[in-house]
């Protein structure tokens, strides 16, 4: 049992599939373990008087109303954690704004609207990484993401390099931490965890040129949102 008292943790969803918060309680043992350290509840925008130690936000802010909610959360939370690709780089919902009426268009990433303290990237995010983040924050530590590329983990997992096989892969520019789960399962890395700090997109596009047409490369880099987004 922890010596310190429980901290308050709230979750809030913007436009998303809901999978990131599903990851939080995917492993019931790990979730009940977290409940020893946190009082977990859903953030209700109407409850303006309540303050939280940590608020986890999943999803991409698409409307003015959602931007308002994100700002409200920032005022009421000591720490804001952006969870998943949608909250980090826009995710699969990033290009949707054209569907909405002009006055409702936001076209901004969560980090451009409010200050985000920590990011747990991925689509879906890794539960172990999320737990590590929450435990680090509980004990007052700074949570850090790894700076290396997915290729690093991919080699450790003894996968054959897809690019060497003349196949598409965004592993060289994508931040590691997923244990190269997609490549392990035969699929290419599509960059859901965003760019690693020193990623060179131009070089990556050149590498992909003989493999796929340029317009397709652009479409691939935008599956999980704006890969070029500020990290």
């Amino acid at each position, binding site marked *: 049992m922890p010596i310190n008292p429980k901290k308050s943790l709230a979750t809030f969803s913007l*436009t998303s*599939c*809901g*999978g990131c918060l*599903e*990851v939080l309680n*995917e492993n*019931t043992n790990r979730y*009940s373990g977290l*409940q020893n350290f946190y009082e977990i509840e859903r953030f209700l925008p109407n409850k303006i008087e309540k303050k939280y130690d940590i608020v986890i936000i999943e999803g991409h802010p*698409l409307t003015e109303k959602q931007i308002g909610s994100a700002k409200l959360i920032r005022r009421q939370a000591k720490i804001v954690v952006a969870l998943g690709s949608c909250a980090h780089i826009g*995710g*699969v*919902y990033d*290009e*949707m704004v*054209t*569907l*909405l009426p002009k006055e409702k268009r936001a076209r901004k990433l969560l980090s451009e609207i409010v200050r985000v303290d920590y990011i747990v990237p991925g*689509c*879906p995010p890794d539960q172990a990484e999320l737990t590590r983040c929450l435990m680090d924050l509980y004990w007052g530590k700074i949570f850090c993401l790894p700076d290396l590329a997915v290729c690093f983990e991919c080699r450790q997992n003894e996968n054959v390099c897809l690019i060497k096989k003349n196949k598409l892969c965004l592993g060289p520019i994508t931040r590691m931490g997923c244990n190269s*789960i*997609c490549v*392990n*399962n*035969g*699929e290419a890395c*599509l960059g859901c965890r965003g760019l690693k700090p020193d990623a060179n997109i131009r070089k990556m596009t050149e590498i992909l040129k003989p493999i796929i047409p340029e317009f*397709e490369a652009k*479409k*691939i880099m935008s*599956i999980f949102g704006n890969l070029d987004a500020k990290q």
Partner: protein
Amino acid sequence: MQNNKLIATNLIGRPYWQAPIMAARIDCDNSVAHNIAAAKAIESACRIEVSSQTKKLRELILAAEIIKNHTFDLYFDVLPDFLGLDSASELSKNHPDLYKNATKLQKFTDQILISVGGRAIHPITSVVGGFKSYPTHLDGDVSLQREASPDMLAAETLRLFSSFDLPVSKLQPDFAALHMDKEYACYDGEIWTSKGELYTEDKFLEFAHEQSFPPCIRVRDKLRRESMKRRMDPRASLSSHTAEPEDDKAIVVGALARYNLNQSHFDEKTKKILSELKIEKKIENPTALILAKAIEIYYFVILSIEILSHSAKAGIKDEHVIPPRKFSSGSSAVESASGIVVHSCELDKDGIILKYEIDALNNP
């Protein structure tokens, strides 16, 4: 705006193979259903005929997702209400045995989803034309979870939920579900309604447009109103409620519709337990959705075990993903835990998506 419409718009102008990846992100609860429906729609447009092994594995992960959703609904949403508890965490404290049943069933389904799809949420391996990688030791992977006897847990679940007295509603909705001649349709088939209407593949979209959300929502709202009425006045008899004429037009999809339209295709074990528990062959009461979900948990667990045993005996071949032969238009319908998912697409000569439409007909 609904997620399915947002994703469908984002798919336009993208290469065909991105459809299943992005469609899986519409709704995390039905990610497998959307992934498979998108893959099937594209395959239909590309004239791809997948192998029987691929079909079986897709059925397996679809069944796993349905079991997982039903288990979550029944144990963590419905059961606390029946037992007078506030939340699922109270269920774990006051009825640890029931809570364990739910978690064991979820672990069983998660292990199937991880072994076949690559992970529990948003499958990785399931793509247009087959699977990127095949689980060569599928039965071995899931064997640990099978030691928990999921069939026994599912039977226990069915017995528990069939013992509850459900409120009777006089709503008499029509039902719609996928239907096949020899199987309890989930992955394939035509859409049948209890009124006797038939929608083949070329008419899936027509069905989705006709039976879009308003009728489903009418039934749901009606049930909510009844539930509110009961809370405010517990003595009020629900059976005294008379159905309004507009209710007759409502279409119910999901577990209850599948049970009513397809139960003749249940396996012997499921038929036996249904007759043992004296469960009626036709359940028109929409509140019996709970019972239909419990029945489906049992049926799909038995089906999953059968597919796993078969794969252990016959082994799983490492097949290649089938490439497209031509690009045109196609559509597909797949059953999800809460209803029917319809995908329709049109591709240009290079395989770029020109049109994409996704309809998710859901019941609560």
